[in-house]
């Protein structure tokens, strides 16, 4: 039987990887992917605890998280496309103005 804290450890590791990606990569697309990683880590935690306590509430939260992730991806990529159209770059550290 796999103890729950292994799941937590995996989630923590994935979370950290995602954080590193968000903080260090320049390409906005990859930053978004790293965000998805973070959210997935959270999902793992939730599902694991749901299994641990034998209730489906965790699943519900995971569903909401996935929903939010989908929304975030849609809006974020929409912004990205608009931005790319204007500035012809996808690098996060070249965006330091609110308006141009």
């Amino acid at each position, binding site marked *: 039987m796999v103890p729950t804290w292994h799941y937590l450890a995996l989630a923590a590791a994935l979370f950290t990887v995602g954080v590193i990606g*968000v903080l*260090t990569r320049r390409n906005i697309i990859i930053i978004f992917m790293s965000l998805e990683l973070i959210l997935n880590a959270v999902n793992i935690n939730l599902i694991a605890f749901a299994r641990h306590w034998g209730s489906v509430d965790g699943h519900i939260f995971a569903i909401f998280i996935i929903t939010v992730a989908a929304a975030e991806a849609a809006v974020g990529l929409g912004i990205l496309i608009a931005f790319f159209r204007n500035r012809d770059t996808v690098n996060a550290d070249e965006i*330091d103005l609110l308006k141009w």
Partner: protein
Amino acid sequence: MPASFLDAVWLVPALPLLGAFLMLLIGSRLSNKIISWLCCGTIFGSFLIALGIFRDLLGLPATDRIYEKIIFTWFPAIPYITDGGNAANFQIEWGYLVDPLSSVMILVVTGVGFLIHVYSIGYMAHEGGYYRYFGYLNLFMFMMLTLVLSNNLLTMFVGWEGVGLCSYLLIGFWFLKKSASDAGKKAFIVNRVGDAGFLLGIFLTITTFGTLSFTGINAALASDTFAMGAPAITAITMFLFIGATGKSAQIPLYVWLPDAMEGPTPVSALIHAATMVTAGVYMVARMNGLYQLAPTTMAVVAAVGALTALFAASMALVQNDIKKILAYSTISQLGYMFLACGMGAFAAGIFHVSTHAYFKALLFLGSGAVIHALSGEQDIRKMGGLWSKLPVTGKTFVIGALAIAGIFPLAGFFSKDEVLWRTFANDVGHGDLFTKILWGVAMFTALLTAFYMFRLVFVTFFGVSRVPRETAHHVHEAPRSMTVPLMILAVLSVVGGWVGIPAALGGGNRFEHFLAPVFASHVELGAAEHAHSLEIGLMVFSVGVAVFAIWLAYYFYIRHTEIPEQIVYRLPGVHRLLYNKYYVDEIYDAVFVEGPVLGKGLATALGRFDLKVIDETGVDGTAWLTRSISRLSIWWDTWIVDGAVNSLGWLVWALNWPARVLQTGMVQRYALWMATGIVLFLLYYVQRYILGS
């Protein structure tokens, strides 16, 4: 329409102004037909209103036939002290003064102007810049009417300068032709000299009378504070007369008028024969009150007039350019008018002005028709035998010639004999001998006038045709729009004088009586009483002289055409002198243009003065001063003002460095801060729950 035409007097100048505006703004887009109708319409409208005004004026009792309409106040009141020591209020209204004199003038101006406009339709039909031409013409009408109607010297001066401008524009209408543009400049420059005098006169008037309005001046004169021949008044009149010589082409400033013939013929007819050149006469007549107080000036005016008349007539004898001849005759006729004015016969002068307007316009337009027929030929030696070819033109031209020659009962006869009789009879204290000499000169001039006019007539219309073949075959009568004005003017030149039939011929001399209130003399003219018999005798004599001159011209130029050559051969000096117009132009050129003292010398001296004193000392000095001051202010701006601003900015910049470090605008930097916060937050729990326990 207002109840009385007098109220509508402002319309008289306004209509041509409107026409001018339309032409010069959108004229280029309009078709020639519309342009013609528009411009002639405006002038005709003013003419109708002028007629109405005239009628209303006749309706009034003779004593208060004066009407002043103030349009707006041009200069607000400025109090000051006149030379006389009494307080005055320098205020100038833009106003119109309607009295018999101005009403007659506007009638003449608008009437003849309208006819000439109509004539121009045909004459300018094939010329470029049609709208420009009519625009200038309307503008000129406006200026002339302003001049004539103005109720004070300054507005009059505005019109005076305006007509000068229009004359310049129209003389140089064909500005591509160098001679035309040169003539325009010449006219303008020569007029400047006169205008300078005019301005001086105006200034003197201000300082003397404290007002410029004619009514005001007359009132001041009526209050009898000015002695006969007061120096101030003499000066004023002198200066004004200088202006008059400029505008009306009198010695010594007549030289521009012959060259002005470069302009289109209708222009010559309107501006340089009928209306503008008579502005001087009008002005003198308008200021008659002053002139009557200045016998010296009167003498000078009379002398200059007489001399000019003789001088110009003698020059006209030998000219070959049809328009030049008419130009010189114009000058000499103007001389007549000034002579009249100089002899105190202002009414006679104005009378001659109006009649002269008729027949001289007629003559010019006729010459224009001839030139038009000969497709631009102006040399009478290349004409001849045109009588059959141009019946209307020929007849009307002959009528005009008879009129100017003073043949009974045409217009010229009455006006000219009025002038001559006044010259003979009036005694304004010039002394008998002087008067008689002037009369003699005028008489001789009349002889010359008749002679050269009929020389012109015979050489142009009779005898063998010297027209070159290529032009001969398409010699044609002018179109209706040109011939109709000719006929009308011909009729006027016949009947125009009948308004002034002297008492001697049983006439009431209504014209003079009509003008009388204007020329009510403030001083008692020693009008010597003479018998009518003498007057009639003189008339007969002058007519005889004229007839003799006509016969002489006939003898010379039809019968024995060799005689003129013989004369030229006999007296080459005289002929060359006359033919070259007494070398006046050359003299002016030598003295005022090339001359070492007054010409180049003066010019260079003035130039050097301008360069050294005004430019280097004045302008450059001011510039240097400005520069140094601005340097100072630059220093102040840079170090004090900007310094304050920058230091403030630097202060803010220095104070907000933490915010700057935090807010880089880079999203990942914010994320980093967030992560750091979380790390620290967790560290707190680490040391509290894990390491602590």
